[in-house]
């Protein structure tokens, strides 16, 4: 059984500020910090992932894959987000998603400031990319850890601290 937990990063409030600033109307769409976890955290048990990381995969596939390629690997015109998530802090990562980016003409990263679904999944997408970068999760749609197992793991983690 493989069990992994990412080292914790200090929570970056800045990114959420940026997101809110960029024309968001509904507060509920803000990426609510999940209790007890931080951006980039993920859990993998027997190749299965926690719900957030799974949601990150689905959100990525729905809204980002058409440019960033299958499973975060990059396309002819957009970079691999697996590599970028390793190089960028959550703050930087979230800032680009909310604000967009165009360094080279024609290679346009659109702003998702008006897309509450994407905004509420930025942490999850970041976690999915971290898990891919650490080679804990392979290509394709991951399976979700059954709830009972996940609770038990969380329990064990607490005890071990």
């Amino acid at each position, binding site marked *: 059984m493989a069990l992994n937990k990412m080292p914790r990063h200090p929570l970056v409030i800045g990114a959420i500020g940026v997101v809110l600033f960029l024309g968001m109307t509904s507060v509920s769409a803000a990426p609510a910090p999940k209790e007890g976890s931080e951006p980039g955290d993920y859990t993998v048990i027997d190749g299965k992932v926690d719900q957030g990381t799974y949601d990150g995969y*689905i959100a990525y596939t*729905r*809204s980002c894959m058409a440019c960033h390629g299958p*499973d975060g*690997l990059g*396309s*002819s015109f957009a970079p691999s987000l697996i590599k970028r998530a390793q190089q960028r802090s959550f703050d930087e990562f979230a800032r680009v998603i909310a604000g967009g980016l165009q360094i080279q003409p*024609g290679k346009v990263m659109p702003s998702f400031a008006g897309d509450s679904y994407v905004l509420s999944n930025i942490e999850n997408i970041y976690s999915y990319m971290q898990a891919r970068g650490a080679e804990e999760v392979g290509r*394709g749609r991951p399976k979700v850890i059954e709830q009972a197992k996940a609770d038990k793991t969380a329990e064990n983690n607490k005890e071990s601290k």
Partner: protein
Amino acid sequence: MLKEMKYVIATIGLLAATTLQANENQLELQNNPELWATQLGNYQGNRYSKLDQINRDTINDLRPLWQFSTGVLRGHEGGPLYVGDGRLYIHTPFPNKVFALDLEDQGRIVWTYEPDQDPRVIPVMCCDTVNRGLAYADGRLFLGLANNTLVALDSESGELLWEASNGDHTKGESNTMSPLVVHDKVVMGISGGEFGVRGHMTAYNVESGERVWRGYSNGPDSDVLLDPQKTLMMGEPIGEADLGVSTWPEGEWKRGGGAPWGWVTYDPELDLIYYGSGNPGSWNPEQRTVDGEPADNKWAITVFARDPNTGEVKWVYQKVPFDEWDYDGVNENQLIDVEIDGKQRKGLAIIDRTGFGFLLDRETGELLVAEKFAPETNWASHYDMDTGRPVVNEEFSTFRQGVNVNTTDICPTAMGAKNMQPSAYSPETGLLYAGINRICMNYEPYETEYVAGQPYVGATLTMMPAPVQDEDNKGRMGSFIAWDPVKGEVVWETNERFAVWSGALATAGGLAFYGTLEGHVKAVNIDTGEEMWSFKTPSGIIGNINTFQHQGKQYLGVLSGVGGWAGIGLAAGLEDPEEGLGAVSAFAALEDYTELGGVLTVFALPDA
């Protein structure tokens, strides 16, 4: 009063005169073998040239004369037009620039047109910002911009003559297709099957840009422009009314896709246009059932034969009722005359997304042949020739396997065994030539919600190279084939490392041409497929190879510039089912072979 009447009559007379001219001008141009006046070479979509200066004996001497950078990075589909005025007309992906280049002066820029478009259209283009090119008639160039604006330009000056709005990108609608000029009309479809748009084909007046008719791919018969008592399906009147509504769950037809974004062909004798409609809305088949059972989702993935004057539907043939694999039915309909069982038939041949090669009667829409050109095809065992319906293999039915179940090893992939890359047809050999994708997939549907302007997909997929018999070809993802549309057989095949995403060309010089994703232009012996010549352009080719003759010299022109769905799906390489986690893919990654950048390369023989 009288005076006004006279004026009206005079303008009607004038319009009638130009009406005839527009059609005749395009017909006249395409009947001249020296020209390449429409993207597919002729109305029938044959991509065949009678020119033979470049032939099997001279091909060794073929070399590039000059190259021209478009200054645009992303995927370059379509190709140059040559209408006999000493210039080449080319276009680019978004921002959709148009260039008139002087053929006699190494591509000097005669004029440039660059529209001003809202860049917010870029994220609603599912598969790169591609565009399949210009249309021409009577001194006017037509281009469908990404943001759904159809523009008419003066070919002499590049000046904008008129523009017409064909859709709304904030609702997920966009355009990638090349319009077609028929009579006094220019017809244009729409893209956005991954954003839950409602597909349609629309005709505009060539003079004014005024909308003449619009026929939808779904909804009530009055919107589709069909008459169930008259419009034929498999040679018989459809009978039942409003199937475009009743074969969907409540209201789902309004986001029912069926976007016709591929090529339109035209038969001047029957006076009918032909095109195919795209996939039906969400990729999750469960969301398109009626009472929990598969429903036909009409008229998605359907070949339409319409009267170009009124838009009225003469016949329909639905290739895939109730799609479960995204077998988007837009591939070009090649109009070819064939002999079947000793009888001459007006045929319509399709090398389809589904892996099947179809032959239909283009007068009635009857299905004559349906055979697999990609032998790995397994989603259906065969077509029932009486009903015209596929016999679906339960094991690969993503609906039967269920939502959130990964249905594995389906062939072909959602990219199709052949995508939009247009095929060629040689009347000399009677064969079709086409670039093929040899890729399979795992497909897992999930429940998704419709939000206007956002992706409406509802399935995740992974792709892998199609299985092969022979170990040497393991991992190959493409091929180029010669297909006998009557016998339903592959005559020869050459293997390629990557999917072949470029259009084919067949010539009277005994050659067939295609481009590869690595960037090669290749010439093969049309009888055997043997490679006779190749040249590596600066980037992968997803455009089409066109040929024309100017002042006694035959030229070949091609846009290179990697991109499209191929550039997205194949950049990092495909999955190897046997590969361990984190292992470097055993299969080739496109990113190891090519980079972005649009370039036109023009070839000729040095001493011609």
